[in-house]
């Protein structure tokens, strides 16, 4: 019997496309704290300080990432990098592996970040991806994707691209 292949979509949102009241109804947050993070990042996205990329699986809203380009302040060698401002997974997809993604949604979103970074790198030189997990418990997510903890920081990670 033919099995239908799931459609995985990444939807890039422009600031003008974001309607917070509509947007927030698409997700289950699991806690007040998560909703606070969510509301704050939406405000930043509306101000064009970060860009949202939604992960949809057969029109189900799985989660999203918020990304921004940053630049180091080195005097002689300024480096651009892609910063993971936020990574959100809907409460119902957090713990289990998602069959169509063949891994957890959070792991898949990291793959998407790397993929986006590689695409950007074709046009703009970027040296690495940077991330700061909100909780220590999230560090294994980043180390499992070979992010490296930056020296002399508590939990800031990078993934080298070039």
């Amino acid at each position: 019997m033919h099995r239908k292949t799931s459609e995985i979509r990444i939807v890039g949102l422009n600031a003008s496309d974001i309607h917070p009241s509509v947007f927030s109804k698409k997700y289950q947050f699991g806690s007040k704290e998560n909703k606070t993070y969510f509301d704050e990042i939406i405000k930043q996205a509306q101000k064009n300080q970060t860009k949202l990329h939604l992960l949809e699986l057969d029109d189900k809203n799985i989660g999203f990432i918020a990304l921004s380009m940053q630049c180091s302040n080195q005097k002689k060698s300024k480096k651009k990098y892609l910063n993971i401002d936020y990574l959100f997974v809907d409460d119902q997809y957090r713990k289990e592996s998602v069959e169509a993604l063949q891994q957890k949604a959070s792991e898949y979103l990291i793959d998407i970040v790397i993929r986006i970074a590689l695409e950007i790198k074709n046009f703009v030189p970027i040296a690495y991806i940077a991330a700061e997990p909100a909780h220590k418990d999230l560090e294994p997510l980043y180390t499992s994707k070979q992010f490296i903890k930056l020296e002399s920081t508590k939990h800031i990670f990078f993934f080298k691209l070039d």
Partner: protein
Amino acid sequence: MSAKIAKHGKIKQSSFPRKLTPVQKKQIEDAPVNTDLIEKVMQTTKNVIFVKQSAFAS
């Protein structure tokens, strides 16, 4: 999730140090590019459709 909420309730845009110490700079310079993982990512994301339009646009 990534990102961090500061005490006043705002998410810090980025806590990655803008100015790296010599040790951090060397650490990044010396870090290898993980080509195996990059190849794997290209495989896992090969069927993804990237869309610019928003499902939530008015």
